[in-house]
């Protein structure tokens, strides 16, 4: 037999064709049962996809896993940590292969993941007491159309962090900074005294982070993202005032000019350096600001719920997350066992420095509150009212559009109104398509 170029090509082609035969376009098999049970098998490996940003640290997780294995020696937990910015795409890329049994899902993704059947409906597994004993904001991250598509990880919102040292040097009283107006006045005083060149840092990079800040400010201005029919309407007066506030604060130098490039971690670093007085960020920021190894302001920082806006309201952006079981999980029962453990009070309460617990009772338990009293006090106020980002299937596309338009306004290449009009028009087109 002659081994010609043609023979090699034909053989390779035939092999490829054989691999193709029987596959669908995406290579995905026909959907199997959606509740996914392995008949109660509680052993094997549970691969879990987590993030390293706010919340529990990798060390926290190592402790939790050790504790879990004391009572569940037959289940091996294999965690993978990625940056928040990479989390969604990693879940999507791994979905077909079923790489992860549990994925950490942001509050904005349940519609997308549930509609695309990437995660399991776990309603039947959820104990009845969760609905009444867990915080509403945390539950929101795990629900879609009245069904549980995950388990609440922790509640979360952005709190307001302030440097008490800089404030007292500028003669600003801690109790006075209850509204954004007062914060801007205080920031100006700090700037004028030369204590800080740019007293406020924001996470306004082209990322989900800027949407979280925008959402929180939009709430303070009395706005919402969508109307009752589900159409985007944040180009209304409240939306324009919100974006104008952001633009003005940047223009006046009150806000750090690096803000349009900052993610949450950059805001933490800015606050830790002591050169910035104010910042919005997730709960675990307080832990990082008081970390004497990394922070120059340990012990000098205060924390409160987000300041009120002209509407008199102060809804925090709902930044809760949930554990979902991947549709491709080969070990969903063991995965649920892990989820039950990591959402339990016994595990969550001791880690209150990193994340607030899911459980309403924890907030009035003095033994838990004393672990992180300042943040508990702030969260009690902050969790009372929240603003949700649009709960839509193609949220990411809408968010990406808004991110770019907010930046266009921040850069001065569009007016606030033009930017928001464009965002709403393109966003509504995306929702329709």
């Amino acid at each position, binding site marked *: 037999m002659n081994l010609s170029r043609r023979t*090699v090509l034909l053989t390779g082609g035939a092999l490829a064709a054989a691999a193709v035969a029987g596959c669908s*376009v*995406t290579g*995905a098999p026909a959907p199997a049962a959606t509740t996914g049970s392995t008949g109660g098998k509680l052993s094997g490996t549970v691969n879990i996809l987590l993030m390293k940003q706010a919340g529990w640290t990798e060390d926290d997780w190592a402790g939790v896993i050790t504790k879990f294995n004391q009572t569940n020696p037959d289940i091996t937990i294999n965690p993978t940590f990625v940056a928040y910015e990479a989390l*969604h795409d990693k879940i999507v890329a791994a979905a077909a292969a079923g790489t992860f049994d549990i994925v950490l899902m942001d509050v904005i993704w349940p519609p997308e993941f549930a509609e*695309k059947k990437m995660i399991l409906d776990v309603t039947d597994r959820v104990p009845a007491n969760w609905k009444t004993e867990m915080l509403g904001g945390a539950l929101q991250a795990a629900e879609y159309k009245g069904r549980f598509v995950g388990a609440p990880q922790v509640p979360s919102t952005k709190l307001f962090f302030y440097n008490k040292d800089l404030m007292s040097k500028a003669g600003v009283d801690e109790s006075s900074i209850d509204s954004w107006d007062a914060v801007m006045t205080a920031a100006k005083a700090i700037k004028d005294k030369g204590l800080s060149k740019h007293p406020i840092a924001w996470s306004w990079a082209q990322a989900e982070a800027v949407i979280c800040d925008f959402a929180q400010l939009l709430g303070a201005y009395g706005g919402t993202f969508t109307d009752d029919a589900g159409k985007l309407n944040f180009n209304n007066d409240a939306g324009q005032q919100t974006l104008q506030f952001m633009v003005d604060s940047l223009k006046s130098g009150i806000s750090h000019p*690096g803000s349009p490039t900052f993610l949450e971690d950059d805001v933490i670093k800015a606050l830790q350096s002591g050169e910035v007085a104010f910042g919005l960020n997730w709960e675990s920021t307080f832990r990082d600001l008081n970390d004497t190894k990394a922070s120059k302001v340990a012990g000098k920082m205060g924390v409160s719920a987000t300041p009120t806006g002209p509407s008199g309201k102060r809804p925090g952006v709902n930044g809760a997350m949930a554990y979902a079981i991947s549709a491709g999980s080969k070990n969903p029962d063991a995965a649920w066992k892990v989820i039950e453990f990591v959402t339990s009070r016994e595990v969550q309460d001791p880690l209150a420095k990193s994340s607030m617990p899911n459980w309403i009772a924890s907030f009035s338990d003095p033994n838990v509150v004393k672990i992180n009293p300042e943040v508990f006090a702030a969260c009690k106020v902050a969790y009372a009212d929240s603003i949700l980002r649009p709960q839509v299937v193609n949220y990411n596309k809408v968010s990406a559009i808004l991110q770019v338009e907010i*930046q266009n306004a921040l850069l001065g290449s569009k007016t606030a109104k033009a930017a928001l009009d464009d965002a709403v028009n393109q966003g509504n087109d995306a929702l329709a398509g």
Partner: protein
Amino acid sequence: MTTRTIRTPRRHTSATSQVQTRFAWLLLAPAILVVFGVILYPLYRTVLVSLFDVRSALDPSPAFVGLGNYVAMLSSPSVWASLGRTLYFTVVSLIIEVTLGLCLALLLNAPMRFRWLFRTAIVIPWALPTIVNAAMWKGIYNAQYGALNAVLYQLGVIHDYVPWLSEPWRAMNLVILADAWKTTPLVAFFLLAGLTSIPSELYEAAEVDGLGWWKRFRAITLPLLVPAISIVVVLRTVEAFKVFDIIYAMTRGGPANGTAVISYYTYQTAFSDQSFGIGSAMAMLIVLIIAILCMIYLRLIRSSEMSLL
């Protein structure tokens, strides 16, 4: 690749020839696996997906849309804008790399002490993984603690720290600079290889004729370097056109999409938006453009003296 064994009538196939054929298959197996399994098969899947309205990686039966995704792609202003940015990235980074690369190559070709040391040291940026390079330059450009701000501030050039990556056009240029820092050594080495192949007699003759430095460069160096320059230009064009990782790590397409090149936009469309159909169509567009560039590249390399083929 063709292994034409001596043609023997099949009936009389000797045992030796059979063993040889089997051995040939064995040797070819890894290449077949790589070419068909890792390159052609995914390419085939991408073409297939690009013809369907795939909105989820788990969708077993997406709707067939024919060339609908290609039409949608070509009528999207965002796609054209990102192609424009990619073109800008490619052209500007090529100009920087070839200019600096040529200067470096001339320096490294000059007789000097410790030339081996300089030649070795210059490889270091190229040896860095792109993601490390990106993280490093992101640190250098940082608005709060970046080295660039510190240097310029201490020299009195700036009076306030500058958020270098906060404006689209500036961010693009600075990402190009970071990329050029890493890839210029590669260009320099290609050109150095070209320089060393120029016979020294030509320079000696030119010197005897009284030609100055510039004239020698114009009359000898540059014309004889043309093959090396064209190869490196095409090679780098292909690389620059598919730039992704440095963008992903430094700016994630921001600010205001200022650095959203076509590869990044493709990734975002496919994986963030889960519009796999259009994402695949965009990937095919990149493949097409790069295939054309590669054909030019292969032609050049075959006609060049540096060719090993």
